């Protein structure tokens, strides 16, 4: 179960590291290696066999694991999604055609979960990345104890979803929670963070923001440090102040990295699950009495493991995948246009 959020969180890596060459065009050392000279023909045959087979042997573990634990299950999920599969009667699976999908399309809860996933995604991603960008900019100054600052910003990343959510749930308690207590000083009455529509979505998003801002800031910081100083110098000569330099030099230079973090966060947001589940407490899989923060991931969990309708849960999983594909296509078109415009 790789978390794509983390898995992809190395934007610039692809950007710079491979700058010498492009994927696939790697020059193979083996291809040009000379077999050891000598009459030992079995040795040279062994050598040649080794040359041919070893690359496949090296990549085999990945593809075996991927095949066994992702690809095959993925196809099975597709199969289940076309059947009526109940947790209570696994041995009889009735062909259901597209019924599960039809149910989804006509279900308010599916559309609600989709829209929640979207809004929570937006209110967790946008502030997160903007804060990360600003934070990176500040960290890019020459600081006393710069490492300490960076480590501090990264500590939320060490906290698991479960631990972070439990703490935030307590902070957000309606009655006697820290946040409502702070708010009462500025004259805001107690907010029912768990049941109100925007309040609950904000609360869930804030957990995501808290955990990932520092991490993204470091990614941006790394990319910032790769920006050549002469760009700033010439901007300064043109009379640009710091803010203008940030806007006109830093941000454009970071564009690929920003784009990448957007994609990564989008994927993470699509799969959002642990935060709303634990935030909900008892019967948390409903995501609130009005499903006000039930995400697609949560809806799937509720259908599959609480209600016991695995066929429908599978259909939800595939829908999530399809949505991601659509996002990917949009991203692709967007990148193409971006490239053309440059």
């Amino acid at each position, binding site marked *: 179960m790789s978390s794509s959020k983390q898995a992809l969180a190395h934007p610039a890596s692809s950007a710079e590291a491979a700058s010498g060459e492009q994927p696939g065009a790697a020059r193979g050392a083996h291809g040009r290696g000379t077999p050891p000279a000598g009459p030992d023909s079995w040795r040279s045959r062994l050598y040649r066999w080794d040359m041919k087979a070893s690359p496949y042997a090296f990549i085999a573990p990945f593809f*075996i*694991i991927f*095949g*066994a*634990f992702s690809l*095959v299950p993925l196809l*099975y999920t597709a*199969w289940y999604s076309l059947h*009526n*599969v109940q*947790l*209570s*009667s*696994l*041995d*009889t*699976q*009735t*062909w259901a055609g597209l019924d599960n999908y039809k*149910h989804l399309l006509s*279900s*308010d*809860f599916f559309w609600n979960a989709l829209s929640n996933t979207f809004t929570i995604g937006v209110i967790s991603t946008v502030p997160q990345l903007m804060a990360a960008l600003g934070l990176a900019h500040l960290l890019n100054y020459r600081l006393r104890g710069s490492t300490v600052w960076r480590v501090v910003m990264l500590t939320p990343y060490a906290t698991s979803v479960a631990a972070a959510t439990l703490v935030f749930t307590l902070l957000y*308690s*309606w*009655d*006697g929670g820290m946040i409502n207590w702070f708010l009462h000083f500025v004259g805001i009455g107690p907010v*029912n963070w768990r*049941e*109100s529509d925007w309040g609950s979505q904000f609360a869930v998003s804030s957990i995501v923001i808290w955990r990932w801002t520092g991490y993204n800031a470091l990614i941006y910081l790394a990319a910032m440090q790769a920006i050549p100083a002469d760009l700033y110098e010439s901007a300064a000569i043109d009379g640009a102040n710091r803010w203008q330099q940030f806007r006109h030099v830093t941000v454009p230079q970071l564009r690929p990295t920003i784009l990448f973090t957007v994609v990564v966060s989008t994927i993470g947001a699509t799969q959002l699950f642990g935060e709303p589940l634990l935030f909900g*407490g*008892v*019967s948390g899989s*409903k995501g609130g*009495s*009005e499903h006000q923060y039930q995400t697609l991931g949560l809806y799937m969990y509720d*259908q599959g*493991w*609480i*209600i*016991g*309708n695995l066929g*429908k849960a599978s259909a939800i999983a595939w829908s999530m995948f399809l949505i991601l594909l659509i996002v990917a296509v949009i991203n692709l078109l967007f990148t193409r246009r971006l490239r053309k415009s440059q």
Partner: protein
Amino acid sequence: MRTSTRRSHRLMALAAVAALTTGLLAGCSKDSDGGSSNDSGGNGKGKTTLTIGTFGVFGYKQAGLYDEYMKLHPDISIKENVTTRTDVYWPKVLTRLQAGSGTDDIQAIEVGNITEAVQTQGSKFVDLGKDVDKSQWLDWKNAQATTKDGKLIGLGTDIGPMAICYRKDLFKKAGLETDRTKLAAQWKGDWAKYVDLGKQYMKKAPSGTKYVDSASSVYNAALGGGSERYYDNSGNVVWDKSDGVKKAWDVAMTVATSNMSAKLKQFDKPWDQGYANGTFATVACPAWMIGYIEQKSGDSGKGNWDVAAAPTASNWGGSFLGVPTAGKHQKEAIALAKWLTAPEQQAKVFAKQASFPSTPSAYSTLKPAADTTAYFSNAPITQIFADSAKTIPTQYFGIKDQPINTALTDVGILQVEQKGKTPDQGWNAAKNEIKDVLGQ
């Protein structure tokens, strides 16, 4: 309609997965699972290890029953696998039953799941009917665990007869009657009367307190006293036509739309805090909740809580013990399940944590723990619950009883109570939810 057996498809995939991974497995098979695969004579020199899967707090360990049984049977050792919540526990049990492996030797089944077990997993449980004297149990308890062809797949453990737990001190301040018998007489026969008293309470309510913890608790109590829940006797969903549901809903709506409810979600953290801070004066309490109230209210509630008979005899919750056919030690497991559910043992559990026996013969001997009695103002708890237990109507539970109930309480009622929706809106929300649950 094409029906295919899943097994053949899955076997193929399984073979593939197994072949691919056997090589990788070598180092990492740490078996600390307590499944019934545990061999006899592992480390116990000829001892048979029986595992029992439970949820919540069954109280067997707390009441020392396992130790007692192991002393009686030196060749047996018992391991309990506890999951806190039924809705997490049960799906896993379901899959393991069907996989035919990984089940415990004894599995506890909650009453909300018993029909699903009876109807879909009947063949996966041992018929216990031949091994026990069925007349020990209340008839309706046996009926719930009996399959169409007459197999008894679960032995009744506790039941959840209802009473009203109330704060004497708060009632007094509000100028209400505080005597349990007189109170019971005031609301006898109708949950609406109990709610009416709430209106009176609110007129002079001590500041910061409400009459009742939540509308859901009233709902569950009223529902448990009707004759029909969500399904009719032949297993059809009739929840929206059910008389019992409608009555319970209406009472709950009176509570939710008035100001008498503390608007808490039961078993949620604020609910616990409500006990601690004494923010509500009554709660409809099944017997198994007695211990919970005592624990949560702490010292501040001592001697202030009292117990009165509920408006109607009603049941909420209770469980069964079943023996899966996949178990390796069925004989031993049956013996243990039989022993644990016998009247004497049920009485011991009651003494420890007030889980109420499903075996009437135990009622005469029941003795609640002394401190519990004191905590609840020396109320005759046993008598009150026993009276209720004897007149509880037989209720038929359906396959999706539990998720439907969640839809009505945690969606429908909660929306009205916490979000200010109208009862109609709440009803419709629950209706949509139930549609979704039933896959309609």
